[in-house]
Structure formats: C-alpha cells, structure tokens
C-alpha cells in the first residue's frame, strides 16, 4: 500500500493542519507542512536507480470494483520525473512560503490545507494508471487551484481570477472526461498501459478522433495553450508561492504530462501531430509576443510560462512524428521528445526561481509594477544574481540550462524538413521561423524583466516600502533553483541519464524498450556547421537590438484594439451566457398561466401527433361498434349545445347554468349506459359544484373583463387552434385505442365471482370496497385533505399582512 499511501500523505497531513495551526501558534505552520514533501522527495528519489534500469512499479487499490474503477499508482520514468518535480519544488515552495507569508496576518491554516490538497491531487494525476482515477485527481487540482488563487478572497481580482481559471480548466476537464470515456469504450479498459498495448486497434475506431480532440481540449486548457491561456495571467492574483508552484512548475504541466502519457495511443494519428505541434508553436509565439507588453512582474512571468509551455507542447508534437517514420528518422524525432522533457525540467527550475524573485521584489518594495521599479541591483544583490541566472536561462544564453534545451528545440524544429508527410514538406519551414521569432521575443522580455527591475534609476518615492534585501530564508529556495540552473548546464548528461531517458522511454515505448537504449547526448557545443548555432546567434543579435529600441516600438502594442483580445472574448462569452440565459428565460417565463398552458397543450399536441405519425399508430376500425341510438344522438346534441353556450356566453352566470346543464346531461348519459350509481353520484356532485360556483361567483369583482365582454371573448386564433388541436388529438387517440384492443377485458371474472367470492349483488360497489378497496381508501384520503385544506384556507390567514386587501365577506 506504500505507493498509494504516499500519494495521499499530503492530504492526510492536511487534516491535522488546522489543529496544528490553532494549537501551535508560535511556530509557523509551514514547518509542519514541510514534512510531507520532504519525506516524499526522499521516497521517490529511492526509485531512481531501479527506474533508470527500466523497471516500473505498480500498485492497485480497488475503489469501486463492480465498475472496474480502482486507484492505480504506476511509476515509470515519466511519472517519477513529475513526482520528483512536484515534491521537490513543493518542498522549496513550502520553505519559501514560510518566510513569505506572515504567520500573524495570514490565515495559514487555509493556505497549507489547500496546498497539501493540491500536492496529493498532482501526485495522483501523474501516477494514476486508471483514467477515472486520473480524472478524479485532475479535478482535485482544479478545485485546489481555485481555492489557492482565491486565497485573498476579500479582493475582487482574486475572486475573478479564481472563477476564470475554474471555468476554463473545469470546462477542459469535463471535455477530457468525455475523451476518457470514449477511450474506455474503444479499448474496453480504463488502464492506460492496457490501452497503449492495443493502440493500433484503437486508432482504427470511429470514435478515435473524437476522443483525441476531447482529451487535447483538457490538456490545452490545463496547460494554458492558445486560446485557453487566458486564465493563467489572471491567476497571478494568487500568493506568489502558489504562482511559483502551480502556475509554473506543476499544475500547468499536467496537460503536458497528459499529452506525453497518451502519445503512444494517439501519436498514430496525423491530427494529433498537427494539433499538438501547431497549437504549441502558436502558443509559444503568442505568449512571448504579449509578454513584452506586460508591466506587472508576475504577468510577464505568466505570459512567459504560457510561451514556454507552448514550446514544450510543440516539441511533444514533433516527437510524436517518430511514430510515422522509419529508420534513422525515428531517432531524429524522438530527440524532440527528449528535448521536451529536458526543457520541462529546465523550465521548472528557472521559472520557479523567477517567480520567487518576483515575490521577493513585491515583498520588499511593495509593488510589482515594473514601471515603478528600477535600480534595485545594489540594494538587493542576491536577488539580482538569482534573477539574472533565471532570466538568462530563460533567454537561452550559454552557461545556463535554458541554452541547452533551446538549442535542442531549434534543432528539433529544423528536423521537420525531413518528414515529407502530410504536406509537412511544404509547410514545415513556417515552424522554425515562428519558433525563431518567438525566441527573439523571449530574449527581449527576459532582459526586460531583469534589467528594468534591477538596473536603471532607483526611484524610492514611487515605492510603498523602503527597498532592502530579503531575509536569508526567503532566498534559500530560489537560490537552490538557480544553482540547479547552472549545475544542469555543466552536467546535462548526468541529468539526461537519470531523469530524462527513463521518461523518453516511457513516452516512446515502441522505440525504446529500456532507458539505456535512448542514445542521446546533450552537447553544449554543436560545431560551426550546426544551423541552430547561427539561429541562436541571430536571436541574441536581433533580440538585443529589439531590447535597446523597446520604447520606440512598444507603443505598437497599445494600438491593438482591446475588444478583439482573447480576454475580451472570454468576458463577452461570460456576459453573453449570463444575459443570454436571462433573456431566454424571461422570453418564455412570463409568469402568466395562460402562456404556460399554451406550452403544455402545444407540447401535448406535438408529442402525440408526432408519435401517432412516426409509429403509424392511427387505426380506425368499425368492427366492434354498437349501433347508434336516438337517445345518444339527442344527449350528444344537448351536451354540444351546453358546451358551446359556456364558450360563447357573455355572462358568467349563464356559463355556470350551462355547465350545470352539461353535468345533468352527463348523468343522463350514465342512465342510458346503465350506470345507476354513477348517475346518482354525478347528479349530487353536479348540484354541489354548481352551488359552489355560485358561492365563488359572488366574491368576484364586479367590473370584470367577462362582464364587459369586450376583450376576453375576443376571438383568439391561437387559443382556438390549440383547443381544436387538443380535441382532435384526444379524439384520434380514443379512436385508435378503441380500434385496436389487444387483450380481452378482465370484467368477466368480476361478474362471475361478485356473489360467490364477495357476497354482494352490486358489482360497482363490490369493486369499490372489496376487489379494489385501496383506491377507495386513498380517495377518501383525498377528500379529507381537500376539506381540511379548505378549512385551513378559510380560517388561517397567516399570509395576510397589513396593507393587503382583505376580501370582505359582507
């Protein structure tokens, strides 16, 4: 049970956090929280040697066995890398948050409960082998992320950001669930490993493309890809540790994880390759282009995250081409997968440290607005050093790990020229060009981020606080990450062998059986003949020029109309759904019973008519008909005349009298159809109800439309048509029902046994009280309730309040 228990360790600890928070006031709650990720990071580190040898670990805990749903924890290269990222960066973030969040001013209990919840959710996402389990943890990440973004819930912006991220990621999550269910239908299993083993048959299935698109929607919304990235910049209202943890290193990589994990299933499709690569490249460009425009430190980092996620996504897309080619080309494209995982790791290190630095700057100066900041280099030298390392790595400058993965990225985009599949040979050139332009912008905003914050003129009068260096505890975590950034540059192949090759072997199981088969070496120096080298040099040159001329051309951004942005579209969609729903419901919910009756009767007519029509149920047969007698014609005429009188009379009293006449005629019908009990009852009831009508009649207001006779009896075509329709429908159904009696009546039994079994002569009464006495019992109940209700309505007038018109009984 240890592997599954490990997933739940953080959330179990979370149960005790409120207690610790309340009882141990003097110690910062974060110190207790630190236990969970530290234990887990050590635990997962122990798996590294075996996973490097190509072993995998799996453990299953039945959850709903009858539905074949279980929690399966599966550790291979990919999930181990993610688990280490989650717990490792989790530990650093918790450590950072201990110094970042004040223990007296903040509600730490809430914060750490949400954070630990998130940690469990994220570990569950990356280790689940069961699709339903994966979805369960996936939604838990959405919910805990919602709670964390809205942590300062008294601020409007926080609530807006939390809601927005919730709407978008839950939309994607639900789409993904649909895709998972389709996968489950196609493969008749929810286990990802079993689905991978039958990938070839699944790819033939009709539902395949649907599942693909739905699952990609989930991955794209979570990983903030175009056009769903809009929630990420707004999620920056969260406390900085949350931004560093969720919105750079872990949660936004869940979509990447999903894409990587399901590559063996879906990579066989051309749609997958194009969608993942195309959307990734577009996101890369879009994010880096708009990052330059931002003035908020965290917003720059948010757009930068979007763009880097796009980069990794596109690399995963290029990597999946390996399934479509043969020979040496397979190695060429699995190299892209290798680059993707490497950059994923690098991004987690440098982006985590940059977010923490942005938080430190915010913490120590009181603002994150880059226009107010400047000249902090001499005041905050350590933060400056860390920020410099992170930014230069992000820009892709040598001596930092970002350089290595950026080179690999450029190589991978260039390798597309060899594909020659699916019209790639004509269009491939666009991808390296867009990637190159995006890299230029990445270079520009990386410099802009660090130099505008730490260089230039210091303007203390603009800052809410007096700037000074952060406490040492706050600098530990970004310091460790920045050290990693440099260390990875110098020992890339050690990192590659330890973490990345097992992950690549997990993503490309058809190519590599064991991690040791992955034969890539990361080289910092490619030689002068490498095109990537000249592309990188070009990026530095053009990027530096653009940075120097930034004030001149950045005005171009403000020329863009605000309405056509994706945020504008999101706001418009939200407003549309709200006001649209309001309009639709106020369109038909008028509060008038007449219109509701029109809907009800209209629906009856349409449903019955279409059923009769579609099922060809209308049958008319004259076989079983009795001969028509004179009496029946006469009484029918009487009823018709009475009914018409009710309809056309202008006086309400006439209508009541005519109704009485109709009721009496019905009693007469009962007589000629030989039902004396019914006739008796009908006569009494009719008299009583006419008397009641007369009683109610008196209390009606004198001057009424009815009495005036102007408006109400106005011929209404709709009402006429609906009434006619209902009448015709009911008649047609009665005719068809009578024309096709399938079974004989059971009344023969009653006739035979009424005396012998029940000891009575009146068959109607014996049925009422003997054969089917239950109905009678409850009809007595109905009458009791009705009379009690009348008494209640008359005597208890609780609802009557002062000022309301009281009906006077004269």
């Amino acid at each position, binding site marked *: 049970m240890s592997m599954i228990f490990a997933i739940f360790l953080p959330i179990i600890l979370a149960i005790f956090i409120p207690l610790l928070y309340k009882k141990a006031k003097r110690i910062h709650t974060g110190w207790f929280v630190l236990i969970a990720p530290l234990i887990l990071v050590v635990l997962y580190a122990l798996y590294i040697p075996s996973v490097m040898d190509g072993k995998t670990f799996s453990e299953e805990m039945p959850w709903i066995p009858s539905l074949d749903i279980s929690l399966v924890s599966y550790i291979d290269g990919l999930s181990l890398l993610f688990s280490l990222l989650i717990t490792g960066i989790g530990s650093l973030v918790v450590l950072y948050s201990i110094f970042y969040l004040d223990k007296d001013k903040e509600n730490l209990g809430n914060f750490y409960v949400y954070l630990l919840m998130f940690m469990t959710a994220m570990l569950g996402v990356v280790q689940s082998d069961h699709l339903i389990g994966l979805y369960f943890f996936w939604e838990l990440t959405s919910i805990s992320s919602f709670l964390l973004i809205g942590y300062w819930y008294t601020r409007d912006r926080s609530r807006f950001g939390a809601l927005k991220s919730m709407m978008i990621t839950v939309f994607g999550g639900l789409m993904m669930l649909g895709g998972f269910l389709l996968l489950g239908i196609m493969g008749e299993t929810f286990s990802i490993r079993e689905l991978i083993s039958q990938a070839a048959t699944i790819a033939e299935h009709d539902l395949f493309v649907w599942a693909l698109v739905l699952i990609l929607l989930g991955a794209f919304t979570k990983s903030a890809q175009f056009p769903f990235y809009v929630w990420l910049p707004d999620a920056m209202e969260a406390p900085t540790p949350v931004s560093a943890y969720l919105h750079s290193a872990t949660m936004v990589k869940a979509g990447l994880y999903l894409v990587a994990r399901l590559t063996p299933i879906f990579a066989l499709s051309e749609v997958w390759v194009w969608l993942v690569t195309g959307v990734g490249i577009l996101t890369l460009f879009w994010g880096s282009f708009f990052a330059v425009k931002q003035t908020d430190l965290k917003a720059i980092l948010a757009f930068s995250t979007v763009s880097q996620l796009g980069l990794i996504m596109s690399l995963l897309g290029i990597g999946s081409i390996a399934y479509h080619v043969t020979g040496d080309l397979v190695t060429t494209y699995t190299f892209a997968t290798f680059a993707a995982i490497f950059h994923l790791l690098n991004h987690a290190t440098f982006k985590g440290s940059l977010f923490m630095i942005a938080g430190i700057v915010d913490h120590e100066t009181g603002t994150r607005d880059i226009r107010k900041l400047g000249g902090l280099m001499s005041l905050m030298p350590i933060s400056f050093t860390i920020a410099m390392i992170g930014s230069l790595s992000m820009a892709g400058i040598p001596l930092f790990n970002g350089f290595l993965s950026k080179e690999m990225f450029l190589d991978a985009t260039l390798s597309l020229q060899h594909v020659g599949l699916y019209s790639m040979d004509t269009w491939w050139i666009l991808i390296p060009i867009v990637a190159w332009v995006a890299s230029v912008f990445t270079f520009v905003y990386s410099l802009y981020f660090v130099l505008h914050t730490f260089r230039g003129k210091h303007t203390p009068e603009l800052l809410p606080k007096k700037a000074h260096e952060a406490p040492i505890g706050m600098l530990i975590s970004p310091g460790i990450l920045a050290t990693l950034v440099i260390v990875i540059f110098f020992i890339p192949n050690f990192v590659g062998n330890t973490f990345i090759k097992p992950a690549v072997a997990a993503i490309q199981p058809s190519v590599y059986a064991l991690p040791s088969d992955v034969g890539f070496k990361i080289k910092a120096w490619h030689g002068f003949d490498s095109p990537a080298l000249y592309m990188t040099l070009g990026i530095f040159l053009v990027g530096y020029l653009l940075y120097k001329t930034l004030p001149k051309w950045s005005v171009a951004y403000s020329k863009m109309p605000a309405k056509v942005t994706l945020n504008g579209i999101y706001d418009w969609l939200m407003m549309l759904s709200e006001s649209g729903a309001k309009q639709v419901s106020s369109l038909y919910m008028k509060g008038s019973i007449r219109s509701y009756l029109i809907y009800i009767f209209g629906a009856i007519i349409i449903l019955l008519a279409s059923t009769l029509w579609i099922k060809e149920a209308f049958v008319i047969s004259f076989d079983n008909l009795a001969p028509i007698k004179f009496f029946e014609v006469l009484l029918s005429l009487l009823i018709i005349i009475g009914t018409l009188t009710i309809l056309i009379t202008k006086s309400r009293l006439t209508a009541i009298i005519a109704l009485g006449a109709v009721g009496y005629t019905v009693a007469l019908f009962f007589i000629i159809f030989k039902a004396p009990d019914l006739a008796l009852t009908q006569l009494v009831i009719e*008299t009583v109800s006419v008397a009641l009508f007369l009683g109610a009649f008196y209390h009606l207001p004198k001057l009424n439309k009815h009495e005036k006779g102007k408006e109400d009896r106005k011929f209404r075509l709709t009402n006429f048509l609906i009434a006619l329709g209902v009448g015709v429908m009911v008649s047609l159904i009665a005719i068809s029902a009578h024309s096709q009696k399938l079974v004989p009546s059971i009344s023969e039994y009653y006739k035979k046994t009424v005396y012998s079994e029940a000891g009575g002569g009146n068959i109607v009464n014996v049925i009422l009280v003997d054969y089917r006495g239950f109905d009678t019992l409850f009809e007595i109940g109905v009458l009791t309730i009705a009379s009690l209700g009348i008494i209640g309505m008359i005597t208890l007038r609780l609802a009557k309040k002062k000022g309301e018109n009281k009906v006077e009984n004269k």
Partner: protein
Amino acid sequence: MITFLWVIVVLISAALLGFIYRLVKGPTTPDRVIALDAIGVGLISLIGLISILFDTPFFLEVILLLAVLSFIGTIAFSKFTEKGEIIQRDRNS
C-alpha cells in the same frame, strides 16, 4: 304500447330542447333558472320512461334524487338572485 312510450320520449325530448333554448337565450337569469327547473322535471319523466323501456328498477332512486336536487337547485338559484348569496352568515360571530 312501446310505440306510445317512444312517442312520449320524443315529445319530452322536444320539450327539453325548448327548455335548453330558453336556457341559452333567456334574457334574464330567472328565465334561465326556470328553464333549468323545467329541465329537471323533463329529465325525471325521461328517466321514468327509460326505466320502463329498459325494464329495470335501478333508476328509480335517480328519479327521487333528481327531484330533490332540482328543488334544492332552484331554491339556491332563487335565493342567490334574491339576496346575492346562498348560505347566510351570522354576522356576529
């Protein structure tokens, strides 16, 4: 004999139609009330004839009931047209 009874049935039915005409047309409410009362009497005789024609004693109760109800109904209508209500209340309660 049967023919004779049928002739009476037709006559009473014609009378009923006449009453119905008055019920529909009747310029004032008392006209209609009287028509309704007459309809009750017509129905009583019709039901009596039907009992004979069907050769059954089961409808005699209906005749009695109809007589009572017709009376009560006419009284109720008359009181209503006279006083505006059917059951007078003790206004002191």
